[in-house]
């Protein structure tokens, strides 16, 4: 393909899933109208969900899901050794995701409740960066295909790749939504990183922070806002814990 008059070779991509719902990988096949152009940019070398051909010569590895079993650690290390660039793809990979909600429960108890006596191996949900080094994080539950396209084009053309630094509120205001706080609801928009086009508050539901914290957020001021609006701080904590993206802030609060 050509970009700004230069010929660019296709970038070799591998897409891998660990403990997850595979919804982020599914986004790669969405936005059907731009799919042919997207596929002109990439050479799919390893993507079990859509192809039975599997090669190990990929440059960029997209890794979806968190790690919850020991065999996943070995698999992940092999992928890291092969890939020039490893991308944590989606909230489970970036933060541990909703899988982390089980981390607060004794693991044996969880197994006993669901599997009734059968031995099933599981361990607390761990984000990818705790096991191997990660070059880029693309958060979101699910990731936004538009953002994925933008970032991959940036990688291929070796231009600067970055995520918005500002919070979801900025995009929410751009969409002229009524603020959910004004409707008496709690919303994590003020502290969560933008880039989703404020899809949840636009649908009149609270942001649950799937993209993790925005940069330089004023967390005490957010807590004050929740108190001023007489909203529940325990609910706020439940929301902040949903995708595990705010673990550092919740830890800080405890201490």
């Amino acid at each position: 393909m050509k970009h700004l008059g230069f010929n660019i070779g296709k970038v070799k991509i591998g897409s891998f899933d660990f403990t997850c719902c595979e919804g982020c990988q599914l986004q790669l096949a969405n936005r059907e109208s731009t799919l042919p152009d997207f596929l002109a940019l990439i050479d799919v070398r390893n993507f079990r969900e859509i192809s039975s051909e599997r090669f190990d010569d990929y440059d960029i590895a997209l890794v979806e899901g968190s790690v919850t079993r020991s065999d996943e650690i070995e698999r992940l290390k092999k992928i890291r050794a092969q890939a020039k660039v490893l991308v944590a793809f989606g909230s489970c990979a970036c933060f541990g995701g909703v899988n982390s909600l089980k981390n607060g429960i004794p693991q044996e108890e969880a197994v006993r409740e669901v599997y009734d006596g059968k031995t099933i191996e599981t361990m607390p949900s761990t984000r990818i960066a705790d096991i191997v080094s990660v070059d880029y994080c693309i958060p979101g539950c699910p990731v936004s295909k538009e953002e994925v396209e933008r970032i991959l084009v940036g990688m291929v053309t070796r231009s600067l790749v970055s995520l918005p630094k500002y919070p979801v509120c900025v995009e929410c205001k751009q969409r002229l939504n009524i603020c959910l706080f004004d409707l008496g609801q709690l919303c994590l928009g003020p502290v969560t990183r933008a880039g989703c086009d404020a899809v949840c508050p636009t649908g009149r539901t609270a942001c649950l922070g799937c993209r993790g914290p925005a940069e330089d957020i004023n967390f005490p001021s957010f807590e004050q806002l929740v108190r001023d609006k007489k909203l529940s701080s325990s609910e706020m904590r439940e929301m902040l814990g949903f995708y595990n993206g705010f673990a550092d802030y919740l830890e800080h609060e405890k201490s």
Partner: protein
Amino acid sequence: MVSQIISNMKKVDFDIDLHHLPRVEGHGNIRISVKDGRLEEATWAVVETPRFFEVIVKGMNAERVPFLTSRICGICSISHSLTSIRALERAMEIQPPETARLIRLLAMHGETLQSHALHLFFLAAPDFFDAPSALPLMQSHPEIVQAGLQLKELGNEISAITTGRCTHPVSLVVGGVSKAPSKEALLKLRTMIAERRAALDMTTEFFMTLQIPAFVRETEFISLCNGSTYPSIGGDLVSTDGVVHDENDYLLMTNEYLTEFSTSKFTKVSRQSSAAGALARFNNNFSLLHPQARAAAAAFGLEPVCHNPFMNNVAQLVECHHIMADAAMLVDRLLDADLHDIRTAFKPKAGKATGAVEAPRGVLYHHMETDDEGKVVKADCIIPTTQNNANIHYDLHALAEQALQEGKTEKETEKLCVMLVRSYDPCISCSVH
């Protein structure tokens, strides 16, 4: 005939051991072992890592639950969301407004259309051309792949307009929906559905040229049935063996049990296994399909009760015809509906109930118990693929046996077995949840 007899006499030995089967959602393994021409083992094992949703949902506020359970599956997140919502609304005796009911039915159509299109074109079709994926088909059959993408895009667009986003819905809530689609968006959908009917007709002609493998193993098909419309959200639980149960009696329709080799459970009802999905819905509800869908079935020679699991692909296509016709009707009804009356306010209360929904891959159950603050105290989720695991397992055995008798090679047997598993469109990450 002579060559067949000779090949039958060959004492073949082979082991097929496929790990992390490609072009299915989630992680499953196939093992076939043949010694001296005799089938020693045929196993379907799910090795997915469990996520313990039933445990982590406990203590959660009912209003937040659908946002968690939708994350069980990236392909059928709308079904999971609506199944939890149905269970919680029945448990707390909440009646959502009629407009919300119509929006939810339309959302289900969007999800099923994208899921069926994804499966038919990206996961199933490549096998018929010995291609590793749909990517080579983009070169060899560009117009067909384009038609598939058009249908998939339409499904995603219906989901996005009705729920705010195509994966992991944002506006499906307990009590109704939090935001209705705009009239402009509905009008756009109406045009889009009409325009894309040509893509569906082209798809149908294309699939009629494909050779569906001949294989029959009698089984029991389970689906929802409400007696008046093709099933989607709620209804009685029925089987082709004549079993009928109330929605709340879902345990009698599943009887989950554990096996040594699989992290996903197995189920059974009247026989050693049963099946859910498009073919099961078709077999139990044929007369309730839109006439256009029945005509499409007739063109393929598909009639109830069909016991060839490979025909599940055709049943999905037949359902796409039904969805296109019914979605157009729902859009028209919504254009005449009150788009402001979409949410019922409710007081949390203690209760328990089951929600059953026909997800793209079959009947999905969530059972929820709430306390008087509306927090979940107990949850149970039984997923379509869990209900198909035993059927896939025993089908594999019968299919491998048939392939041996027909003198098929190891390679041919492996291909048939993989196609069989894919025809169920298994959603493995869902089945281990």
